[in-house]
């Protein structure tokens, strides 16, 4: 290992030269370092050999002759690209929306209009769906009536298998084994509707004077609904 510090205080050590030799070849060293390295190369045969060798490497591998392709590569590539191009053309013919790119136009005029319109429609529909699900949960009862002036904090009873809420003790509570007590506000929010028997006073029909026949129909309806619920369990 040559240490030029012994003979020239300004000179570099071999290790430092090796560390920078690649940057030197690329011209990526400042003037002072470059000058110091050149001085070193004049004095150090080993480092001069390393520099010459590294330059040979860059020159030889950088030659286009080093870039060879296997025989037939070009033909195979061209064929593959032609196949791809033909497939695109065929797909373009099949699709009513995608117009041949070879024709120089990506979209037909009506397609260009229809796409944003369709997007708006879909977006609106999605918003409506979210709005419905979130804020206005529909009552599932076929006798659904929202009720009026039901005290929101009134405790009502619900149970599995039915979307009707009751006052405690109502004989029409469905599946009493699963009954739970919640507030009327929560029940309505969760999509329950008031029982047409025990909650009659809060139903709209009660204000207009409901006839017995209607009442009977309502009862029959709720029973039918509960039967369906049971059948479905």
């Amino acid at each position: 290992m040559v240490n030029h510090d012994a003979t020239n205080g300004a000179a570099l050590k071999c290790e430092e030269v090796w560390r920078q030799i690649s940057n030197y070849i690329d011209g990526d060293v400042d003037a002072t370092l470059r000058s110091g390295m050149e001085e070193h190369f004049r004095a150090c045969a080993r480092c001069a050999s390393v520099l010459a060798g590294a330059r040979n490497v860059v020159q030889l591998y950088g030659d286009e002759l080093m870039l060879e392709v296997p025989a037939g590569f070009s033909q195979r590539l061209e064929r593959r690209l032609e196949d791809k191009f033909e497939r695109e053309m065929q797909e373009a013919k099949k699709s009513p929306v995608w117009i041949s790119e070879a024709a120089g136009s990506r979209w037909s005029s009506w397609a260009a209009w229809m796409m944003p319109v369709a997007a708006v429609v879909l977006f609106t529909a999605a918003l409506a769906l979210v709005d419905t699900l979130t804020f206005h949960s529909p009552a599932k009862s076929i006798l659904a009536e929202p009720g009026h002036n039901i005290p929101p904090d009134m405790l009502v009873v619900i149970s599995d298998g039915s979307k009707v809420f009751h006052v405690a003790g109502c004989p029409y509570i469905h599946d009493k084994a699963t009954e739970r007590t919640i507030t009327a506000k929560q029940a309505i929010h969760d999509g329950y509707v008031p029982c047409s028997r025990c909650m009659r006073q809060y139903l709209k029909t009660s204000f207009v004077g409901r006839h017995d026949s209607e009442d009977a129909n309502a009862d029959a309806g709720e029973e039918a609904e509960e039967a369906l619920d049971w059948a479905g369990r």
Partner: protein
Amino acid sequence: MSDPGIVLNNPEQAPAGARERDLISSVQNGQRELFYELVKPYERRVYAAALAILRNEHDAEDAAQEAMLKAFANIRQFRAEARFSTWLIQITVNESLMRRRRERTVVMEPIDDRREGEDSDYAPRDFADWREIPSEALERKEVRQRLSNALGTLDPKYREVFMLRDMQHLNIQETAEALGISTASVKTRLLRARLMLRDLLAAGWEQGWFSRLPFEKGNKPW
């Protein structure tokens, strides 16, 4: 600061700038059949990039062609600010690296490399007799094959940087972006690759890789 001592052959026999821009524009606007004309000047570079990463001719050809098809499919994403050749090489590098990861190719690391980390200094071997290698040597297939074999012995991380920087002539920044590494790493790996290849070539020089056989000079061995 350029080094006047190095004159590289330009491997990029690409269409002249204006012609290439016209071709790109035409292909982007629907004249897809012109794509092959656009990429043909780069097919050797694309293949070489794939081969340097995959080290298998069949895989390299497949990856190179797939990269061309991807470039074909995404030609509208190409922006004029970039060099088309660099964009194409980057697609090829991505395709090749993805394949190598997928196939989990096991590449044996050279002994030296296991012993020394990337950041540790590399001490070049001392060869007493070193002469300049004439470029004409490359006209011989066996020389090219030996150089290719020497490159193949490098650890992939060095080989890839060297291939992009010294064979594809990407600059340091482009090389870093293509491989997703820092420019400092590019410089460190490039130094190591050049020095290791120098050692291999110097050894090859001693073994007569670059000299013509005696009988070719008229000194018949018989």
